[in-house]
């Protein structure tokens, strides 16, 4: 049900490539020697907080530059400022908090902005934004103030603003974390229905279990890469083992302290 405003960039393009990418912040290495070629339609990204998931997304969007290695998205390189202007047509990113992204006060303006950023004229963008909302069954949202929408509704606006330009890939950074259950289900359904490539980072493993490919990042390194079920199971197992180890250590520690007193 998406309004096709630009030629879909999916078909013969080479996917997302990361070649020997290393990213550091200050003296901390955030991502180390990442080699990836992402062509699958549904890809999950799991791992502890601080493992580098958001950083990986930021690299793909061109927000950060790797210290070494190269990133290219459907043929568009991220290290050149000129090419970065065209990057939003290939990949869109939805940040965790919709309040961090929405720039315009009304819904229609926010959607139109995505179009004007892609080079479409202001008047035409406004019309297309309204038409998009009508096609989605939300005609009265056009002039609604963003400040009056609920969290879940603002998240929807963000998603629509990304989908209106039909980029080939959508990056969703923990999109479920701030949503209530009905909104989660709605988002999940939208994710399942779209024809764009989706890379989804989440802590709720159930949402990516059925994905054809899931990546497991651990302390900046790629620790797992394979079918959803296997990787999710392996990651969950690893978390359980670490938790068990941690409580075992705590028990020993308390015992040692009790002994000492």
């Amino acid at each position, binding site marked *: 049900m998406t309004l096709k405003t630009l030629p879909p960039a999916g078909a013969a393009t080479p996917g997302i490539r990361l070649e020997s990418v290393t990213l550091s912040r200050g003296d901390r290495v955030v991502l180390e020697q990442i080699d990836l070629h992402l062509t699958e339609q549904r890809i999950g990204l799991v791992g502890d907080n601080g493992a580098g998931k958001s950083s990986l997304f930021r690299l793909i969007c061109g927000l950060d530059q790797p210290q070494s290695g190269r990133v290219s998205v459907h043929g568009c390189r991220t290290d050149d400022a000129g090419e970065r202007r065209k990057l939003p047509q290939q990949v869109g990113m939805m940040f965790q908090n919709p309040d961090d992204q929405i720039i*315009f006060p009304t819904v229609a303006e926010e959607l139109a902005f995505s179009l004007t950023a892609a080079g479409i004229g202001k008047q035409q963008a406004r019309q297309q934004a309204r038409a998009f909302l009508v096609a989605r069954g939300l005609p009265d949202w056009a002039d609604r*103030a*963003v400040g*009056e929408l609920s969290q879940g509704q603002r998240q929807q606006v963000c998603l629509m603003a990304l989908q209106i330009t039909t980029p080939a890939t959508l990056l969703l950074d923990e999109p479920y974390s701030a949503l209530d259950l009905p909104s989660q289900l709605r988002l999940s359904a939208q994710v399942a229905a779209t024809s764009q490539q989706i890379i989804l980072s989440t802590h709720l493993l159930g949402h990516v279990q059925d994905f054809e490919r899931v990546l497991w990042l651990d302390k900046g390194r790629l620790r797992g890469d394979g079918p959803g079920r296997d990787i999710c199971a392996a990651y969950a197992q690893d978390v359980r083992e670490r938790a068990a180890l941690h409580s075992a250590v705590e028990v020993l520690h308390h015992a040692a302290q009790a002994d000492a007193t």
Partner: protein
Amino acid sequence: MTTTTGTMTSTRSLSYIALFAAVIAVFGLIPKIDLPFGVPITLQSLGIMLVGCLLGPKRAFYTVGLFLVAVALGLPLLSGGRGGVAVFVAPSAGFLLGWLIGAVVCGVSMRQFMKRMPEAKGKGLLIVAFLSSLIGGIVVMYFFGILGLMLAAHLSATQATLAVLAFIPGDLVKCAACAVLVQSVVRGMPSWRLDRD
């Protein structure tokens, strides 16, 4: 900070005042242009006008007052990381007083307009906000700024006025930007009332 009409309680007021003092500080963090005579072209005066137009005269007074007190106590909240009592003895110190009075005047002007045309949106609101910013942000601000410059640098009124003339076009643009900002905020938060005290 007493109870006013609507849902404004004193704690609410405190919250708005403190947070918008923070907004003024953040406006100062956006890179500025440093020019001679130590009078910087910054976005902070835009923040002052915005606070005046949005929060009304009383709250604007407390907000800018709080901001200036924080600066006086030594916090580097003035654009360029300046702070401390030293900024109040600089040639541009008059503008700081101008900020305080100017924000109030902005608020009074805005309130007077909005009381007469409470349903103003779109172009009407733009003009009203622009005029308010002009009166408070330029007329009042420069009045005190020029006065301060006269006192600090022993200049005559004409000389001081000539000295700051170059910055007025930039500030006119800021008034327009403030008007656009006010309109955007009203569109984004229609429940925010501009005619409140």
